[in-house]
C-alpha cells in the first residue's frame, strides 16, 4: 500500500523553521497541511501525505502545482520528484532516466547527492552515490563533477519512501498562515500596504482588511483596485474579509475642523479608531499599515506617535524600515505591483493642503477633534461598513 502512495511523479516539500518547533509542532503542521490543501483546490487528483517531517504530493509535478506551492508559508523549499521502489537497482534506473531526460552532451557534468535517513537500508549514502553515479556515467557518458556540476541528482531514502529530484525551488518560508493570530490591515490601494500584509502572513498572521473609500471624491475603480489587491492576499488564507468604510462624509467633517496642516493626521487617527472598532468586533489583537519611516509627511516618528495615540490596539508596521525599491521589488514578486499602479486616487490626498505638518502633537490634534463628533463618526462608519468576503 505504501509503495503505491509513493510512486510515479510528485512534489516533495521541505519544512522551514517549523522544524525547530517543539511541543506545538503538531499545531503548526496541521495549519500547514490545511493551507497546502487549500492551495491545491481544483487539483483533486493530487494526494498529500506527511511523513518523517516532509510533505509529499503524489499524482502530478507540473508547473501549476509548483506555482500553487510558491506562497504556502512554512516550506523552505520544494522539488518535483520521481518516486521509486526502495532498492538500489530502482534508484540507479531512475537516476539514469532523469539524466537522459536532462539531455546534455558528452561534456555535461553531474553529481549524485544521496541521503539515507533510513539507516536500515542496505547501502550507505556514499554507496548509493557511487553506484548511481556509475550507472549514469555508463549510460550517458556524463562526467562527474562534485563541485559545480551542470546536473545535480538528489536521492533520498526514508523509511516509507524513496525519491529522486533534479530541481530545488525556493519556498515561501515563514510560518503557516493562521498560527500567529489575526490582524486588521489598513489597505490603501498603494504599493506598500499589500506588501505589509504579505510580510505579516509570512509570520503566520491571518488578515482582514479595511479600506477607506472616499466616493464620490474617488471612483469605484479605486475600490475595485483594493478588492483586487485583497484577492491576492486572500489566496493564502481560508477566507479574507474586506471592510469598505465610506469615509467621505467623515473627511468633510475633519476638513472643516483641521488646521495647520493637521488634516492627514486627523484622517489617520480616525482610520485607527474605525479600524480598531472593526477589529474589536472580530476579536483581533492588532492593526497593521504599510507605513514607512520618513516616506511621506505623515510618517515621521512624531506623526506616527500622534496617529498611534488614537489606536486602541498596537499598530504593526512591517515596512517601517524598508527601502522603497525593496518594497517595489517584493510587490512585483508577489503580484500586487501591477494592480497598485493602476491610476486611481487615494483618499488621503483629499482636501489636503500642499504643506502638511511633519511634527504633529497629539494634544493639538485632540483639540481640533473636539469640534467633531468623533464617536458618531466611528459609529456611522461601523454601521454603514460594506463587508466583502473574498
Amino acid at each position, binding site marked *: 500500500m505504501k509503495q503505491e502512495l509513493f510512486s510515479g511523479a510528485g512534489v516533495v516539500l521541505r519544512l522551514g523553521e517549523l522544524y525547530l518547533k517543539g511541543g506545538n509542532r503538531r499545531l503548526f503542521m496541521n495549519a500547514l497541511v490545511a493551507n497546502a490543501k487549500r492551495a491545491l483546490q481544483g487539483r483533486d487528483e493530487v494526494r498529500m501525505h506527511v511523513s518523517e517531517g516532509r510533505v509529499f504530493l503524489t499524482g502530478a509535478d507540473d508547473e501549476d502545482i509548483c506555482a500553487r506551492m510558491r506562497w504556502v508559508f512554512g516550506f523552505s523549499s520544494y522539488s518535483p520528484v520521481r518516486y521509486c521502489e526502495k532498492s538500489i537497482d530502482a534508484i540507479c534506473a531512475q537516476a539514469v532516466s532523469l539524466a537522459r531526460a536532462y539531455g546534455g552532451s558528452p561534456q555535461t557534468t553531474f553529481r549524485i547527492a544521496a541521503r539515507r535517513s533510513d539507516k536500515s537500508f542496505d547501502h550507505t549514502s556514499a554507496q548509493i552515490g557511487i553506484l548511481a553515479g556509475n550507472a549514469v556515467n555508463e549510460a550517458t557518458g556524463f562526467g562527474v563533477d562534485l563541485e559545480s556540476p551542470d546536473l545535480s541528482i538528489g536521492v533520498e531514502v526514508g523509511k516509507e519512501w524513496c525519491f529522486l529530484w533534479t530541481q530545488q525551488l525556493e519556498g515561501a518560508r515563514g510560518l503557516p498562515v493562521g498560527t500567529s493570530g489575526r490582524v486588521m490591515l489598513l489597505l490603501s490601494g498603494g504599493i506598500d500596504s499589500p506588501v505589509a500584509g504579505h510580510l505579516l502572513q509570512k509570520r503566520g498572521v491571518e488578515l482582514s482588511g479595511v479600506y477607506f473609500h472616499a466616493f*464620490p*471624491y474617488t*471612483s469605484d475603480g479605486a475600490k475595485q483596485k483594493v478588492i483586487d489587491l485583497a484577492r491576492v492576499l486572500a489566496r493564502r488564507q481560508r477566507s479574507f474579509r474586506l471592510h469598505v468604510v465610506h469615509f*467621505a*462624509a467623515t473627511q*468633510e467633517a475633519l*476638513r472643516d475642523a483641521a488646521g495647520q496642516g493637521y488634516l492627514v493626521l486627523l484622517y489617520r487617527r480616525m482610520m485607527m479608531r474605525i479600524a480598531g472598532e472593526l477589529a474589536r468586533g472580530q476579536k483581533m489583537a492588532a492593526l497593521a499599515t504599510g507605513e514607512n519611516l520618513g516616506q511621506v509627511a505623515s510618517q515621521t516618528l512624531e506623526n506616527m506617535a500622534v496617529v498611534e495615540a488614537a489606536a486602541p490596539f498596537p499598530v504593526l508596521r512591517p515596512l517601517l524600515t524598508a527601502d522603497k525599491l525593496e518594497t517595489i521589488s517584493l510587490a512585483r514578486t508577489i503580484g500586487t505591483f501591477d494592480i497598485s499602479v493602476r491610476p486611481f486616487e487615494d483618499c488621503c490626498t483629499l482636501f489636503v493642503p500642499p504643506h502638511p505638518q511633519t511634527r504633529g502633537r497629539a494634544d493639538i490634534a485632540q483639540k481640533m477633534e473636539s469640534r467633531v463628533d468623533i464617536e458618531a463618526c466611528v459609529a456611522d462608519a461601523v454601521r454603514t461598513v460594506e463587508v466583502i468576503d473574498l
Partner: protein
Amino acid sequence: MKEIYFDNAATARPREEALAAVVKAMGPDFANASSLHRKGVDAAARIREAMEWMSALAGGGEWKVLFTSGGTEADNLAVLGSVPKGRRDTVVTSSLEHAAVESSCREVARRGGRCVVVKPRQGGVLHPQDVAAAVDDRTALVSIVHVAGEMGTVQPINDIARAVKQKNKKARFHTDAVQAAARLARLDYGPAVDMVALCGHKIGGPMGVGALLLRPGVTVRPLFFGGDQQEGERPGTFNVPGIAGMGAAARMMVAERAEAVPRLADLTARLGRRLLQSAEGVRLLGEESCRAPGLLVVAVRGVRSEVLLHTMEKYGLFASAGSACHSTRREPPACLVDDGLAPDEAVVRFTPGAGVTEDDVEDAARIFETALQEVRCGNAGRMK
C-alpha cells in the same frame, strides 16, 4: 433608485433585436461563414444582410463593406491602409478626431510621412476652406470626424469632402462616422466621401465589431495577414454573431431614426436649457446650430469633473467627462481648451439615447443641480 443612463456616446444600451441576432448566430446558426456547406452558406447570408444594413445606415448607395473589430480598427485601416509604409505622403486631419484617427495619423508621420492637423473655428466647427487649404499635391488622405465626440458638433462633411477634392481630386476622403451614425436623422454621403468608419456598440449592437465602408474601386492595404476572407483586405474568420448583432442594430436605427432623432434633439436641447438654468457658471459647448442630437457637452466652473460625475452617480445619473477612450487622462480634451475652456472649468458630457423621456430630462437636471451644489459646498460625501 431609478437609473438614468446618459453615457450613450461611450456605449449605447444594446437593442433587444441585436441581442437576439447575436444569440441566434452563436446558437443554432453557429457555422463559419466561409464554409461551403449549407450551414456556412446560411451564415454568409447573415453577413450579406448585415452589409446591406450597414450601407443603408451610411445613407445607401454603393459601398463595399469590410467588417472589423470595431471603430478603432476601421479608422486605422482607412488611414494606414491608404498610406503605404515608406511613402512620404501627407495626411490631413483635424483636432476634433477620436484617438483612433489621431493616433493613426501620428503613426503616418512617425513612418516618415507628414501629418497636418486643422483646427476648427470658434464653436468647434471646421470650415471647408480651412481643410482644403491644408491639402496639397502630396496629400494622400484627409480624415475628418463627422460628429466630434468630445465637442459635440456636427461637421459639414460633404462640403469639406468636396472642397478637398477640388483642391486635389486624388486625395482620399475618410470620415469617422461612429458617433454620427448613432445620432443623426440621416447620413447622406456624397461621391466625394470615399470611406466611412462605423461601429456596433454605439448604435445598440455588440462591442468588438465595426465596419469600414469603401466606395467601389477604393482598396486598402491590409493591417494584418491571414486567409482570403474579405479579399484579404481584412482577413480572419468572420465574427458572425457580432456582425449579425450590429446589422440588426443598424436595421433598427435605419427604421426609427427619422422619427426618433428629432425627438432626441428636442429633449437634448431641453436638457441643455435646464442645466443652464440650474446654476451659475454652467455653459454649453459647441456652436448651438451645429450641436449633435443626444450629445451635450457642458463646462462647469469650480468643480472637478470626476467628483461631479461620481456625485451624480450617487443619485443614479450616469454621464462622463469626455471620451471613454481617454478616461484615464487627467487634462480636458485639447480641442476644448483651444475653444476657450478655462482652467477652472470641468467638462461633463451628457449623451442620452433614443429612449430618453421628458421625465428623464427633468430628473437628470434636478440631480445635476443637487450634485453641483453639494460639490461646490464641499458636502458631497454624505450618504444619500
